[in-house]
């Protein structure tokens, strides 16, 4: 029983991490038809930003208490800024060439991890975290690490915030309409490009937050972390339906749980394999699942 509880909580924590990457990825693809290969790099930027601040380089920030909160805020802000910069300088000039947009993000996705490993080395760095978050707590007889709970809480907050933003604000309305039919929104005289930047900022913010909290989950940061998570985020996006935030939330929980349980109860690595094969199977069985529906 305790194993099942632990696996469930770990799976949900991993799923929360996937959701933080996939929500932005899904919105960006739904609205702009751009599969953002640089999204993993945004996560890495958030992770390194937080690590840098929490290691005592930012005044006021540190590994414990309010200092860590400030570090996470700093990392998220840097990631958001990087995402906006990416949209304005790399993606926007290629507005009329969708395939080149994807190619350009591939280039950024290669360059950023290389730059990070150039500055801080290619080896994993220990991630400093508050004492309160590195311990465990008892749940139904299992000792569950607290950081799983932090990730799940962050993912729920992001999900609720995104739902409120998309459902209750005018900008959210534009984004939702843009996912449904971009040409029509443009024809109505609304500048969709503002929504593009906005969606990139939101996606970058969520991914960078995922990077900051992913540091807690993995206990370390390394330059290739974001890229290796990206493929599972793709699986989530496809499973949940492109452009759907709620779909991404459900899919990420399912994927995280399947991966954890399959890895534990069958041979190690089979869970990863199962998830990847699931992606292929889903795409082949319902190719229409790719069309954006914002729930």
């Amino acid at each position, binding site marked *: 029983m305790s194993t099942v509880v632990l696996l469930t909580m770990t799976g949900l924590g991993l799923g929360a991490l996937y959701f933080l990457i996939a929500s932005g990825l899904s919105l960006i693809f739904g609205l702009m038809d751009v*599969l953002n*290969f640089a999204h993993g790099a945004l996560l890495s930027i958030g992770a390194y930003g937080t690590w840098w601040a929490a290691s005592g380089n930012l005044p006021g920030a540190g590994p414990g208490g309010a200092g860590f909160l400030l570090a996470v805020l700093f990392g998220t802000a840097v990631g958001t800024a990087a995402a906006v910069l990416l949209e304005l300088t790399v993606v926007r000039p290629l507005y009329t060439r969708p395939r080149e947009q994807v190619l*350009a993000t591939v280039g*950024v996705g*290669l360059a950023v991890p290389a*730059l990070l490993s150039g500055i801080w080395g290619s080896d994993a760095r220990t991630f400093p975290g508050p004492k309160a978050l590195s311990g465990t707590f008892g749940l139904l007889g299992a000792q569950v690490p607290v950081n799983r709970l932090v990730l799940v809480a962050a993912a729920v907050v992001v999900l609720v915030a995104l739902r409120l933003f998309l459902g209750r604000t005018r900008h959210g309305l534009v984004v939702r309409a843009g996912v449904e039919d971009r040409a029509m929104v443009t024809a109505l005289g609304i500048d969709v490009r503002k929504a593009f930047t906005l969606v990139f900022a939101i996606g970058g913010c969520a991914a960078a937050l995922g990077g900051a909290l992913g540091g807690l989950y993995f206990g370390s940061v390394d330059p290739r972390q974001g890229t290796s998570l990206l493929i599972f985020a793709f699986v989530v996006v496809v499973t949940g339906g492109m452009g759907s935030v709620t779909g991404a939330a459900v899919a990420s929980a399912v994927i995280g749980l399947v991966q954890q349980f399959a890895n534990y109860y069958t041979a190690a690595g089979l869970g990863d394999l199962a998830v990847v094969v699931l992606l292929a199977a889903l*795409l082949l069985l319902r190719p229409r699942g790719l069309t954006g529906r914002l729930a």
Partner: protein
Amino acid sequence: MSTVTETHDRTGEKHTVAPGPGNTARLLRRWWPAAALLILAVAPYSALPLPGLLDGPLGSPGSLQLLATCLLFGALATGYDLLLGRTGLLSFGHALYFAAGSYATNMFLLEAGLPFAVSALLGLCFGTALALVLGSVSLRVTGIGFSMVTLAFAQAGSILVSRNPGGLTGGEEGRAAPADLLPSGLVGIEHTANLYWVALAYLVLTLAVVHWAVRSPTGRVWEGIKENERRVEVLGLKPYGFKLTAFVLAGALAALGGLVHLLLTGGSTPQTTTSDFTLSLLVMVVLGGSGTRWGPMVGGILYTWADHRLGDLAGSGAVADLPAVLRVPLSQPLFLLGVLFVAVVHLLPGGLARLPSRLAAVRRRPATTETLPARKARKENGRP
């Protein structure tokens, strides 16, 4: 580019009859591939030092190894362009077929102890069959869905190889090929020249196959699919079979490349299975010029050379003395290549292959003596 070369060829033919001062230039334009091939073929006999470009003299084993790797990747990029630039298929799983050729041949050598020729043939067949099976499944979806299915299959292969099932693949370490089963002329540092010629032959073969395939009636249909798939369907042709042909042909060429890589490096490495490997092929093709005859080859050679040499240069004194702001980015070849790639995508659509015609256009423009007021007046009148 192919059309551009064609017109060059035609003008060349037309003018070879008439003697004139431009004759040599035209001959050069027509025969430079043959000249380049001749130079590349005799390169191992030369001791020409190329400081900066290569570490040692041209004929030294180290330089030949690097050159052979460059040629191999030039050929691989050319084969990959059969999908990307000729048929318009964005596959993220090309590494799988390359790795399949390398690993399968190695397995047949190591586990079954078959002679090299048989293993190579079986490995090639395995890679081609894998491309046929997975291609026929992947091509059921189109657009970005196809890209992601190929990515998923390649990732599954990558996970499988790194998990080392039954000790077959050697996991993260990869597996060395058994030297006693390989042809003796292709093993050891003293035979690097032979390996170089093998890589060169692979490049020539790939270029010839791609050139022939693109000009065949099937190649015309590929071009049509790339431009507008719906229209090809309306013409009464089924794109699926044509796309599968391109996929299997590219897969077979990649598997053959994996075989050459196995000989060249003396083993199979899991790095060749990763999605990063496919992405680097993508970068090579776009860098050089997708859909052109020489572009992908140039991109592949340039990328591989830069990837190897920039790392060495970073360790040299010239870069080590620079301030950190310059030194850190310069010491990361992948960063430089990524930035260069983004720059090419933005500023040079069509890749490096388009550079000569672009430069010619720029050179021609100042030649038209047009004064600034005249241009202004023309603009105001709204005429082009």
